[in-house]
């Protein structure tokens, strides 16, 4: 479904984020990408949603090389991938409901679909009561759940989550992880980047370990082992 082929990303001669990274993600997998800060986890996910371009290599999404896509095709790629970020990246001037609805609006969904789907997804993440609150009125955990609802609402085939629990306390962290597991069980591929050892060891799913920009371990089920 997703294949990274010999991917490298060099910012400058002192900063090499990724060195010939190759691995594949199959449909319905739950893959964790682990590594220390600066190991290249975030870069890898940014390349998948085309927020950045690699220096070399190929990235396939559903057999299509996303590096050969025209700029005006990017929105269509991104509508098939739901992205969740450490800093939530909600639109501050939109309510929780509007933030989630936005992902459907950009895809040109009808008002009826939006009115039908958004409350359901907000219910799924447990935020039915906060639909009309602005992000500044929500806690960190609530913001991240809105972000997940937004990533989920247009039924993407894959969700990429870049350190989604990085800014959260342990209780909220587990809420979010349980949510991601639930989403995966409902049939969506999940790629989770994290450096949280406890999460990885509890998940018992596939783990891709990155060190200094290279894949040092790829095990299923894997554990958090870094030298």
């Amino acid at each position, binding site marked *: 479904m997703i294949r990274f082929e010999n991917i490298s990303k060099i910012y400058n001669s002192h900063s090499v984020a990724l060195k010939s990274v190759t691995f594949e993600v199959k449909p319905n997998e739950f893959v964790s990408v682990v590594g220390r800060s600066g190991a290249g986890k975030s870069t890898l996910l940014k390349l998948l949603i085309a927020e950045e371009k690699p220096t070399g290599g190929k990235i396939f999404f559903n057999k299509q090389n996303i590096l050969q896509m025209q700029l005006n095709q990017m929105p269509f790629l991104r509508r098939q991938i739901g*992205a969740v970020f450490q800093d939530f990246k909600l639109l501050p001037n939109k309510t929780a409901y509007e933030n989630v609805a*936005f992902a459907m609006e*950009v895809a040109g969904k009808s008002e009826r679909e939006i009115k039908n789907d958004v409350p359901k997804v907000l219910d799924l993440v447990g935020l039915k009561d906060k639909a009309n609150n602005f992000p500044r009125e929500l806690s960190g955990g609530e913001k991240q759940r809105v972000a997940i609802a937004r990533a989920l609402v247009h039924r993407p085939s894959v969700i990429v989550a870049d350190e989604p629990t990085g800014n959260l306390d342990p209780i909220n962290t587990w809420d979010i992880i349980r949510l991601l597991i639930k989403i995966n069980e409902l049939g969506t591929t999940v790629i989770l980047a994290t450096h949280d050892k406890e999460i990885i060891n509890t998940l018992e799913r596939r783990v891709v370990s990155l060190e200094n920009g290279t894949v040092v371990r790829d095990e299923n089920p894997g554990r958090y082992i870094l030298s």
Partner: protein
Amino acid sequence: MFTTLGRIIKSGLLNFWRNGWLSTATVLIMTVALITWTSIFLLNVVLTSVLDVLAEKVDVSVYFNLDTKEPDILTLKSKLENLKEVANVEYVSTDQALEIFKNRHANDDVLLKSIKELNINPLEASLNILAKDSTQYATIASFLNQDQFKNIISKINYTENKVVIDRLNNIIRVLRESGFVAGLILAFIAFLVAFNTVRLAIYSSREEITVMKLVGASNWFVRGPFIVEGVLHGIIASAFSFMVIIPGIGFLGPKLLNFLPEINLMNYIGNNFWSLLLFQTLGGIILGVFSSWVAIRKYLKV
């Protein structure tokens, strides 16, 4: 298509309302820019009228020998009127010249008495010539200096006033040019201020723009609401600017009328109200849309 357009417009209006503080600041700066533009335009109207009035005060008079017959003068008058440089020719007969003289010196008994004692009318008939452009008097003067008119013309006052006319022409030219250039510079400064305000406003939204793109919004879906906001800024700023300019003219117009009776700004505004309003609103909208359009470009490259 219409759903998307509706969403873009709704989103633009919502952003305008929810970014209240930023919208107010942008509208105020744009109001200042529009007031500057309109003031420069009106000042140019005033300057042009002043210079036109000044240019009209310059004319050339041709005086004829006392024994010249009226038909000869009228023949010359019609020849002059056929010149493309000439705007108007006015004939003052000897009798009219005497009338004017008497009226002008009505309080001077000595002069009036001496005229009476002369028994004949010593004043020469004349043609007052107004050129279409005050720089064209030299051409008209050279036409009059032809040999065929030499025996009827006693003097042409252009030759005497040449220095003054040339100097006045120079002053008019310099004022027109420098007024135009100064206006352009000021208008450009006003544009830069407004443009950079919009750029700062959009700079503050740069992360939102990235987020929208990452969620899968097309460039138009991101840009659209900002353009709608730009249009709103322009329209509101234009309304504010008119609310300042109209009372301002009402206040300054009468004062200007006191020492420049030829220039009635209030009439000018009255006659051109709708076109001024239209151009100002268009200016505001173009300013708002152009600034948003240019400012947002670099943040869309995600």
